[in-house]
Each structure stands twice: as structure tokens, then as C-alpha cells.
């Protein structure tokens, strides 16, 4: 059992200033070229290009040839491991990947870091290039890391407009400002369109008759949205087609006051209005539709859509 008063001493093993090592001619050549921002491999008697170079062919144990071959600087990722939390000794202080990189022209893979931003940016076959340190000294870390090659860019797209709702939608929004839903009845089709419109999309007749429909209705279909939207209060939110009582076409609206997974076709809902003093000429006057608690409607009789 550990004693409560266990004696513990901090202890450091270190070569102050670092341990000096000779490189030998082969590794030295690689590091010298690296200082000049060139990547070289050495050819074995069998013809394979070892990168980084070794003094002996790992397959045969024979000395390598004296033929140095410039490789890269681009290469291909063969395997990678993602470091989500870099450690103090790691080459980057933000999340990065360790990778086995086969430089173009090399017969072996180099182990180094890839600054890819996200693990989603990595895949076997990813093309990468070195990012060189500002001052090179002849050290494997003269390559700060590798970066994915440029394969895409982000182009800004933005244009500004002034939009007006038109006469019919203005009329509808005036109704919404007053807490009413205004529709239009086509005399020929005997169908009530909500929102209000000035012509019948079915027969083309001019709509003469304005009718007010109820603030209650039935969900005919819906979608659960998991991406944020400035018009919705939270994620996930439900947008639905609501067939208002007295209307023949459903209107798209938010559903609230109920968990998303409980929303269903046939659910009876009512509009939740902002207080009158907060209303404007906007659909934002309707906060959302919430369940009324009534039994579900039979969808066969309320499928929505104009006849």
C-alpha cells in the first residue's frame, strides 16, 4: 500500500544543450540537401530509392549506391493518424496528422506531420507538399510539416437587392399584422388559396373574393431541420405544411412547443401570435404553430392542395 507520506523527488534526465551526433555520409547528405530545401533519396543496388536515405539496403543489408536522387517535394499520403490534442514535444501546437508520405520518385515512405486542419481533409492518396521553416539548419524539422496540395478554393459570392412583396402578399401580410390569415377564393375552382393571391394558379381566373381562414389547421407533411436558420429559434426545428381550416392549400410554417420527434402528419395545430404591440408587416408575427391537443385529423380528408 502506498504510504500517505511517500517521498517523491522530481528528477530530470537531460543532456544540456543536446547530444551531439555525427551523421555519417549518407544521412549527412540528406540533411545537407534538406538545408538547401531539397529532398533527396539514395538508390540501392536493387534500384529502390530510399527516402530518407539509409547507409544499408534494409532488404539485403548491402551498402547503398552513391547515387542520390532528388525526390518530391510533393508526395502522397499512404496512412495517417490524427492527433486531436498535440503534446508539448509534437511539431505543431494545433491538431494535425502523422503520416507516412511517399514522396514522388521515392520507393519508401517518409514519416512526418501534415497540417490538414481537420481529419476530414485526410485520405490515403492525399497529395501533400512540404512547408519549409524560415531558417533551415540541416535537421528533419527544416520541414515544418506537409500541407495538402491546393485542390479547391473559396470564392466570395454576394449581391444585394431590394425586394418588394407585391400586391397580393402585401394584402396577406396586412392580415397577419392584424392577427388574421387572409385567403383568396377562386370562383371558378371553388378553392381557397392561402396566402391570398390575385389569380388562380389552376385556372388563371382573377380572384375577386377575399376570405379569412382560421388560425387552426392540420400538419400535412413536415421536415426536421438540423441546420441553423436565422428564422428558426433553435436546432433542430420543424418546418411543416399546415392546412388551415377553411383553406384548400397548405402554408409553410414553423412548428413549436413540441419536441421535433413528436410532430406527425395529421397533427392539429394553432398559430401562436406575437402580442399585438410587437406585430409588423411580417410573417414573424406568427411565432410558430403549436399543437392544439385535439385528436389527429384524418389525412385522407385534409391532404391539402387545390382541387
Amino acid at each position, binding site marked *: *500500500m*502506498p*504510504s500517505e507520506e*511517500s517521498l517523491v523527488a522530481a*528528477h*530530470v*534526465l537531460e543532456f544540456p544543450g543536446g*547530444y551531439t*551526433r555525427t*551523421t555519417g555520409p549518407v*544521412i549527412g547528405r540528406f*540533411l545537407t540537401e534538406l538545408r538547401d530545401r531539397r529532398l533527396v533519396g539514395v538508390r540501392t543496388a536493387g534500384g529502390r530509392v*530510399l*527516402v*530518407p536515405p*539509409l547507409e544499408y539496403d*534494409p532488404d539485403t543489408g548491402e551498402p547503398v549506391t552513391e547515387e542520390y536522387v532528388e525526390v518530391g517535394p510533393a508526395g502522397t499520403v*499512404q*496512412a*495517417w*493518424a*490524427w*492527433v*486531436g490534442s498535440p*503534446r508539448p*514535444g*509534437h*511539431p505543431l501546437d494545433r491538431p494535425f496528422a*502523422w*503520416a*507516412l*508520405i*511517399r514522396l514522388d520518385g521515392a520507393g*519508401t*515512405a*517518409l*514519416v*512526418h*506531420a501534415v497540417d490538414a486542419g481537420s*481529419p476530414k481533409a485526410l485520405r490515403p492518396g492525399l497529395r501533400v507538399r512540404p512547408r519549409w521553416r524560415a531558417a533551415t539548419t540541416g*535537421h*528533419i*524539422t527544416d520541414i515544418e510539416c506537409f500541407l495538402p496540395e491546393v485542390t479547391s478554393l473559396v470564392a466570395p459570392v454576394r449581391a444585394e437587392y431590394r425586394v418588394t412583396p407585391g400586391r397580393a402578399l402585401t394584402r396577406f401580410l396586412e392580415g397577419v399584422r392584424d392577427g388574421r390569415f387572409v385567403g383568396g377564393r377562386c370562383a371558378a375552382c371553388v378553392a381557397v388559396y392561402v396566402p391570398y393571391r390575385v389569380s388562380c394558379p389552376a385556372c388563371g381566373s382573377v380572384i375577386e373574393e377575399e376570405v379569412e381562414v382560421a388560425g387552426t389547421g392540420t400538419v400535412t407533411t413536415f421536415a426536421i431541420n438540423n441546420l441553423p436558420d436565422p428564422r428558426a429559434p433553435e436546432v433542430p426545428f420543424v418546418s411543416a405544411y399546415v392546412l388551415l381550416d377553411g383553406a384548400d392549400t397548405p402554408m409553410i410554417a414553423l412548428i413549436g412547443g413540441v419536441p421535433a420527434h413528436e410532430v406527425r402528419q395529421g397533427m392539429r395545430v394553432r398559430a401562436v401570435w406575437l402580442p399585438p404591440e410587437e406585430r409588423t408587416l411580417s410573417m414573424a408575427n406568427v411565432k410558430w404553430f403549436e399543437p392544439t391537443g385535439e385528436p389527429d385529423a384524418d389525412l385522407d380528408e385534409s391532404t391539402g392542395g387545390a382541387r
Partner: protein
Amino acid sequence: MRDVAVVAFAQTVHTGHDTGLAEPELLLPVIDEVKRATGLKRFGFTCSGSCDYLAGAPFSFVSALDAVGAWPPISESHVEMDGAFALYEAWVRLQHGDIDTALVYGFGKSSMSDIREIMTLQLDPYYLAPLGLDQVSYAALQAAAVNADRAALDEIVRRSRADGRANPYALDLPDPSGEEFEVEPLRPYDVAPVTDGAAAVVLAAGDHARELAGRPAWITGIAHRAEPHYLGMRDLARSVSTAEAGRAAGVGKGPVDVAELHTQFSHEEPILREALGLSGDVTVNPSGGPLAANPVMATGLIRIGEAARRILDGSADRAVAHATSGPCLQQNLVAVLDQSL
């Protein structure tokens, strides 16, 4: 070849924390236990495996001899490797024919430092160590190369930890859970736990083995092979050196009842199974293996000890033990233990 057998094995009750014992104090009870089991007080040869970097002191293994007793002078050697490789040296030494018994031990306290970064110090100082490539990171590169099935890895850890809970010497670790990565694709539980511990084995040759144990665990084959150190020079998805060592040790020459594999990461099990040709119905690491207790520098020796124990106690007739050294299974030792020669 001279017939050599494991006749005794002992290990500490491994811990996931520093119990306050120095290495010789950790070691003394297991040396004592194998001395009592065999009745031997002196051995023809003594060989140990440990790593000075674990304690951060040069020649720290010398002090471990206090647990053995080295006067009058004994014939002694040490490898800066797992004790399994010390056992190989002792096996070779017994082949000389002039001695009949050998004591082998390994020990390590990983709790004293950060083993992930201590293991960086074993990497080549030109190309790998300066990158700060730590042990879990290079293991994750191998896991990515082998592209192991996540559900299969989870099952390996679950089984290993359950077996470990049933093993009084291993750690009590819960079933694996959690979605976070240590270094993707490895999760924290894919990594063998930090462990302090020690183990000892006694080898004996010929009739000496028969005198010292009712069912000696005969080493019918033992071999080790190494691959290039640099990770990019080899196919990390396979362990060619394990396969070659397994062939040289004769793994495939008979049925395997049980295999104890030095798997410090879950993805190493499918690599080693394939290399050794172990079918899915071979029981692997019934002790829980390194994923349930990983006293570094004793873990490989414990694989041999656990395999031998099952021969010694009659629960298996033929067993395979594996030990590894270096990054990403660079060097591998395979031993076949058999109840008969």
C-alpha cells in the same frame, strides 16, 4: 540442441500506480518465489531485461542485482530490452552445455515518467525522434495502415479486460467505452495501461528440468527476427519478422492450445494472429495480456511465463508465446512451449 524448459514462473501483482517500492523491492518477492518453487538458491546464469530510461538513471539495472544476491560473484548479463529477450540469451547460454539452470527476470515502473515520450527516445535520432513522434502516435500510424475493424478492436479490448479482471495479477479495468480518440484511429482503451511490475522465470536443461518440475514447459522452438527500424521502409500492416520467427520456432508444426501475445495496442492482435497463422479458435491472451497489465520490460517475459504456466499446470499441452521490441512491432520473438519434446 540441448533441451531447455521453463520450470518456474512468478510475477508481481501488477499495479497501475507507483506503490512506493524501488525496483529491487518490486523484484525481490518474485525472485524469492521462483527460488522457493525450484529449491534453487544459485543459478548457472542470470540474465535480466530492463530499461534505464524508465528510471532515468544509467546502469539502474545494476541495483536490481541486490534482489538476486551477487556474491560470491555470479555469471550475469543484462539486455536493455524486455526480459523475454534476456530469456533468449539465457537459452543460448544453456546451449553451451556447461551450466544447467538460469534465472531470468524483467522489471519496470512505467509510472515514474511518461512512457509515451520515453518511448520516443528509442527512435532513431536523425529522422524520427526529432519530430517528437510518441509511442501512441506511431502505433496509431500502424493501426491506420492495418485498417482494423473498430468492432473487432473493441471486442479484443473487452475480452482482454474481462480476462484481466479474472487474473489476480492483472489490473481491474472496466469494459471499454467512450467515443473519443487518443490519436485517431486509436481510442484510449486501445492502449495498454501504465503498469508497474516484475516477473521471473527459471530455465533448466534436460534432466534438471525433469527434477525441478512435474511437467516442464519444454521450449521446442525459440527465435527472434527484426525489421528495418524506420517505419516508412516496411509494410506496417503486416509483421514479416513475427511470421519468420514463428516459422523458425515451428509454431505451425502442431496444434496451438493457447497463445500469449505481446499486444500493447489492440490492433496488434490481428497483425500477430495473421503472422503466426493462428486461427480464430486459438485462445489468445487468456491472462488478459498486455491490454490488462503492461509492466514494460517484464510484459514479454510474462507472455512466456503465462504460456509456460499452462503447460506446467496441465491446462495446455502446446502454447505459443510472443514478445516484441521497438516501434510498431519492429523486432519479434516467438517461443513454442510443449509438454513433450
